[in-house]
């Protein structure tokens, strides 16, 4: 696959990872699923693991896109943009 495709994969994976990680937090879980929608322990850990795993996939895709040195630079940029994207998503469309 070309470098751009890997970079986009990395961005999508990072965004997905941040979605999962934010939903594992009480405040944002409430924002999305409403008050009273409890967050069971097992679900919280599943979300955390999924989120962390997705960030790992994002790193791998970044390294595949740009090589083992510049890949890390790409990953930092991808993380920033994905996290800002998730902040805006939670702000603009809290009830997903």
């Amino acid at each position, binding site marked *: 696959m070309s*470098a*751009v495709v890997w*970079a*986009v994969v990395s961005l999508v994976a990072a965004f997905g990872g*941040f979605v999962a990680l*934010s939903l594992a*937090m009480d*405040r*944002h879980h409430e924002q999305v699923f409403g008050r009273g929608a409890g967050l069971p322990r097992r679900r919280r850990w599943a979300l955390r693991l999924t989120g962390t795993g997705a960030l790992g996939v994002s790193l791998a895709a970044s390294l595949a896109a*740009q*090589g083992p*040195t*510049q890949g890390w*630079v*790409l990953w*930092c*940029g*991808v*993380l*920033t*943009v994905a*996290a*800002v994207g*998730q*902040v*805006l998503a*939670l*702000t603009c469309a809290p009830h997903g």
Partner: protein
Amino acid sequence: MKEGFRQSMAWLHTWSGLLVGWVLFLVFVAGTASYFRDEITLWMKPELHQAQHPDVPPEVAAGHAVALLQQRAADSPRWFITMPTEREPGVRVSWANPPGVKPKNGRGRFSSAMLEPATGAEISEARETRGGEFFYRLHFDLHYMPAIWARWIVGVCAMFMLVAILSGIVTHRRIFKDFFTFRPKKGQRSWLDAHNATAVLALPFHLMITYTGLLTLMFMYFPAGVQAVYRGDQETFFAEMFPSGGDRNAKPSGEAAPLAAVGPMVAEARAHWGGAPVGRITVNNPNDARATVAITRQIGQATPSMSYNTPTVIFDGPSGRQSKTIGDEPSGAAETRGVLYGLHIARFSSPFLRGLFFLSGIAGCLMVATGVLLWAVKERQKYAKAIAKGGRAGFGVRLVDGLNVAAIGGLPIAFAAYFWANRLLPVGLEARADVEIRWFFIAWAVAAVAGLAWPTRRLWQLLLTVGGTLLATIPLLNAATTATHLGVTLPSGQWAVAGFDLVVCALGLSLLWAAWFVGRRAAKKAAAPRPAPAVGGEMAEGVR
């Protein structure tokens, strides 16, 4: 330090950020724009938009360049040829004017020309403009002052920035808990959230760009090491450290000797670097028996290295034989500096990565802007009672408010004025490039004076609307003054020109959105049941 460590850091963060905030805002905005320096320059030279640039073998392009230089500048002491890149498709040649020659198309000691790489024909009809180069220089040389002063000013501000970032990390207690938090429409709370989000989420970028920014001028800010080893002889240090142009001080022999063909040298240099492209060719004392040709590797997407150091191959001019290679195995220290420098300039990056750098840069601009606005919002609350009785806020708040409007409200207008001047001024105008820059500063000065005089919510709304409108209508301006509007550039895939139109338009629309938001809040306040004092100096609160 009577208070705890965190309070001290909060104090340090506030003042190190506020005092230099407005200079930092300019530096951040100009630096962010500089990521697209070549694309901005291309957009500002519409005569070049339609040029076709097929892939030309570099040997051929270099041959054309030398032919032109032989014709124009055979007796020049030094020639420079900058080879085409994927971002700047023309061949740029420049040459040092022989002593006593003052041509009309030159900036002081040097003259230059731009060539079509395939044919060697001169691309002469492009209008005179500094283009993106102006923003690049503005980023660290400012303007209307000697560069050395500006670099010290910018350096001091960058050092404050580094202090502000580090103390900000200590001050922010809930980096991970508040990682995704933004609570809009809550006054000071929202400003703090926005400041935290833009700072924390792009923190790797902010730390990197501030530190590497200081490092780009490290020989100026920290000269002691070089002074000690070289006993004050910086010239020798630079000649040994950065020999990419070959020996600058080599004297001509005075004996004429024809220059060997440059094409084979280019091919040999490329082969030496495993096929990496050629960046710049410097010919010292052309047509002399002691002529040398220095060929440096290109910095850019096509080269695997992030480093800003350029390996060089030097050839003997008359014979065309390779005489030495430089920088193939740089020392650890040199390579560390080269990579950090390279990270700051980001010339190595692919278009996608460049876009991410640009977005992180915008996050930096917003971080600085929300920081200085937050100070005013917080400080004004101390005067809330006085303002409610019809009094005024303190002098400090009014000054900060004024500077905020001047910098944050005024700078977009200045940028827009620069782009509009590029299209509205007559093409053949005398000193056109300088007049464009004057438009930038006049527009900014008007906005700044207005901001300092009436730092009110209405003025915020006005400036944001003017800046937003001017930027959002850039695609229309381009369509009205050139044949390469979005309807042409999008279907034909001219992404550099189309991208400029689209990005600037999007930035303009976000400013218009901000202006609408300011206006809505103002209207709400006016309609509120308790009599809202429409007092100057309270506009910044809750723009979001």
